[in-house]
């Protein structure tokens, strides 16, 4: 039991290797290894949640070396919560992945599986490590895997991902620099150790510099407004499954790292009073919420709309950090889970629509409600949750944030939460209205053909399911011009392996909403306890 914290990333790292070598031999083996490994990590993380609730936290010392010499792994309520989010989304996306990848990135699936496992290993590692430098390593592992997964999108994707990579490298560099300052002033890298030693050093300029650098670096990685510039293009041009995996969890784990620094490395007092970082984050978040919502309203491409909405939604989490009181932070943390579910299902639905119709533009969505009833019902639930209609999950995180703003007496944040709900209602109901419209004659089929360039018809058709995964040769030039996507497949409802994760997520959105107090009580209340004293 006490190896759980290290077991989860270890399983996933091993899975990544197994998936790579398995996939070299036969695509199916690579997939089987990924599915098994991710499912195992999911089960272990659920066991971890149960264990934390029942028996409290687990601290594991890697190789038997006690900190500060060795690296410590910590499974406490906060990391258990995060890891559960990451592995749940991970498992569902892995179920969804093969069908979607075969359609959108034919010939490259063999690389996608190990990258997914590596991404999850990096993210779970970030959550579970108790060492600030180790966190950096996992941060970059996750980032590297993400670059690979995102860059295989359409032909514009490499440009967008290059920008993301440069932003990410700078963010990682700032964080590492901050780690250096911390180490040279406190002499340790272990989080618990740092928490003990730092209070004497709060006036030290090196520690202040460390805090600023680390938060800035992570802010870049989490796309905190106005450091979000890399995000919309990346999510827009990425394959649907990649976006569905990365948009829900990647930025959130960076946000998690900020919360971890805030609560467990620097004492809250430091970041609230001595160096008012949280207040600063809060105001950036307020700007980000408005900016993201307004930009999302202006988009017609569904994926781009979702990407801008992500900028706004990640800012809700940052707003929770900015409020820095128990209700506010509970709202922020709960929104991590809620937004992971909502944005995950929305991107996955985007992929399903693309598979069946080739459409990405919202104004062409008429008639989808009849064509794909289950998928669109899930879309409606997720969209209502994004707007914050009760009893979906999205309502409750906003409600806690409202309570937090009242507690903080911050009426501007209060007003911004209200206004942004209205704005998101505008852009999500626009989509809902469209999908439940009756299509005019011929509208459904024409743009479907037009949306896929002719090159895809010629190039994409060459890759049959039975062909080897193309490890050696790589895709032809023709494919890449169109992102390698095939023409849309005929048929109504999304295929089973894609529909299942979508439905599970939609049901989870409802369940998490109604039973949110179970999570808040058992996992989140202990996390925010340091703030109430």
């Amino acid at each position, binding site marked *: 039991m006490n190896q759980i914290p290290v077991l989860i990333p270890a399983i996933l790292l091993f899975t990544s290797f197994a998936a790579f070598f398995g996939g070299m031999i036969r695509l199916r083996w690579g997939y089987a290894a990924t599915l098994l490994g991710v499912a195992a990590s999911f089960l272990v993380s659920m066991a971890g949640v149960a264990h934390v609730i029942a028996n409290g936290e687990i601290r594991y010392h890697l190789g038997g070396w006690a900190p500060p010499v060795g690296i410590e792994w910590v499974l406490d309520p906060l990391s258990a919560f995060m890891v559960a989010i990451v592995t749940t989304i991970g498992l569902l996306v892995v179920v969804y992945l093969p069908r979607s990848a075969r359609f959108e990135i034919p010939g490259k699936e063999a690389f996608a599986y190990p990258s997914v496992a590596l991404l999850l290993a990096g993210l779970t590692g970030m959550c579970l490590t108790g060492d600030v430098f180790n966190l950096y390593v996992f941060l970059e592992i996750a980032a590297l895997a993400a670059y690979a997964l995102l860059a295989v999108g359409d032909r514009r994707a490499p440009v967008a991902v290059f920008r993301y990579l440069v932003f990410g490298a700078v963010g990682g560099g700032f964080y590492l620099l901050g780690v250096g300052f911390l180490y040279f002033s406190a002499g340790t890298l272990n989080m618990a150790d740092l928490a003990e030693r730092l209070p004497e050093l709060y006036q030290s300029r090196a520690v202040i510099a460390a805090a600023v650098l680390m938060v800035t670096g992570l802010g870049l990685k989490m796309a905190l407004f106005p450091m979000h510039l890399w995000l919309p293009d990346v999510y827009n041009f990425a394959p649907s499954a990649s976006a569905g995996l990365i948009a829900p969890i990647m930025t959130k784990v960076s946000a998690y790292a900020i919360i971890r620094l805030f609560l467990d490395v620097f004492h809250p007092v430091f970041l609230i009073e001595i160096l008012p970082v949280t207040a600063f984050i809060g105001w950036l978040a307020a700007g980000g919420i408005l900016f993201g919502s307004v930009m999302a309203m202006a988009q017609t491409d569904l994926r781009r709309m979702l990407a801008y909405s992500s900028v706004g939604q990640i800012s809700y989490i940052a707003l929770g950090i900015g409020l820095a009181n128990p209700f506010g932070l509970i709202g922020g943390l709960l929104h991590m889970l809620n937004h992971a579910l909502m944005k995950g299902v929305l991107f996955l639905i985007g992929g399903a629509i693309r598979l069946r119709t080739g459409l990405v533009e919202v104004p062409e969505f008429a008639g989808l409600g009849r064509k794909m009833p289950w998928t669109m019902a899930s879309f409606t639930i997720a969209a*209502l949750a994004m*707007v914050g209609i*009760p009893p979906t999950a999205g309502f409750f995180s906003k409600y806690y944030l409202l309570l937090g703003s009242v507690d903080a007496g911050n009426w501007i944040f209060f007003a911004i939460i209200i206004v942004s709900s209205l704005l998101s209602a505008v852009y999500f*109901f626009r989509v809902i209205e469209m999908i*439940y419209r009756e299509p005019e004659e011929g509208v459904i089929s024409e743009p479907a053909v037009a949306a896929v360039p002719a090159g895809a018809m010629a190039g994409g058709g060459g890759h049959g399911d039975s062909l080897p995964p193309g490890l050696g040769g790589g895709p032809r030039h023709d494919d890449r011009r169109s992102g390698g996507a095939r023409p849309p497949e005929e048929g109504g409802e999304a295929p089973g392996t894609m529909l299942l994760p979508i439905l599970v997520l939609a049901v989870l959105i409802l369940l998490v909403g109604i*039973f949110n*107090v179970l999570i*808040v*009580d058992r996992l989140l209340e202990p996390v925010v306890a340091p703030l109430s004293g």
Partner: protein
Amino acid sequence: METLLDLRPLFAILVSAVAAVAIAFTGRNPNLRETWSVLAAVTKFALVASLLPGVLAGERYEVDLVQLAPGIELGLRVDPAGLLFALSASFLWILTCFYSIGYMRGLDEGKQTRFYAMLASCLSATIGLCFSANVLTFVIFYEILSVATYPLVTHAGSEKAYRIGRQYLVYAITAGIALVAGTALIHQTAGTLDFQAGGFLDAGAGTGVLWTIFLLFMLGFGVKAGVMPLHSWLPNAMIAPTPVSALLHAVAVVKAGVFGFVRLVGFIFGPELLGDMGAAALLAAFAAATILIASCIALTKDDLKARLAYSTVGHLSYIVLGVALLVPHALLGAALHMVTHAAMKITLFFCAGAIYVHTGKKKVSELDGIGRQMPFTLAAFGVGAVGLAGVPLIGGFVSKWYLAAGSVDAGGLFFLGVLLLSGLLNAAYLVPIVTRAFFRTSEGHPAFNEASLFMVVPIGITAALSILLGIHPDGLFRFFSVAEAMVAGITGTTFAGGAP
């Protein structure tokens, strides 16, 4: 007062939600689909009615389901105020079910499965908010109701319907968010959200906060209750099929807003605190203005449903005015008007729908002589029309009588004047429809040709109900006693007189 754990309120809510799912899955078989509707409606009404004796005996049925937020349960509680609304809504749903069959089949409407499923969902939400034990639960059902009505408003599927749907959503979502914000404020100022007869907020919270809460809730409920200037979605929403206009936009949805005011005044703030704040006077002023302006606009409308819609706007504000006057008689009048107006207005809408289905006529000016063709329908229309104007022996008289008595109690002869003047206006815009239907003649109305029995029978029943409420208000489902019990809970006053 005794509090009992009871699952009946929960079942009453769930039965139509389950029916909605069943309807969605049996869309291919219209008869089976409609059977679910009717079954759910009857079951729901039976469940609600079975709570009546206990509530009148002073029992309060309660059930807490799950925690929604720390310390706040998804709680249901049956009290007289909620029961009053639930009884009228669930009873009228049964009639609407039959009426819808006649109407939707008569017009051969599309998307009927969605129509019945969403209608059932709306009723779930309505009963849910009747039985909500705290503000958060109430707001949740209120928002579900808002969203579930949207597909019904855009049912026609035309560009115009979508435009109106968007307008409806902007109003409804704004209102919902105002309520959520207000709820969060109450949560943090009072520490509790449980409705309590007589109110649970106290002046210690500070005038600024209390006014903010009041205005947020006034915005939130004012939209659904059609208080001017927040009313303009309601006449537009008449683009929905007539059963929706009849049940939702004359009874369930709009009364949810009015019922919200009852909760706000009687169970959150309490009459005393509102009186001290002076907030009730503001609400009363808005309501009085709405009554008069809406009646005047109704006079100018030639479209029958639009005329009825403005009449609804006016009559909803009667109830709001009764609540805002804060005196026992006015509250009693308001409570009764919730029921009597429901019965009369649904009659009028049913008639309008029957005329449209049967003859395709929508405008008042086209109705000359139609009384000879559809005598039963138009007779029922007449009952509703004179009832709304406040003629004795019909339900509207009773409720208006108490409202008038209440305005005298409150010392406001001004409000008494408003009531009387609007009674005249009511007569002016409704009664001529009946007279021209019976006493004028025109080409093209065959001798006798009534609408389908699916429609005529429900119309007859609602008309009879309107009369019954006027003769013996306590006779059916003991509405009068329930209303009395509600007022007694809020103000601590009991009435010696009983029914007139």
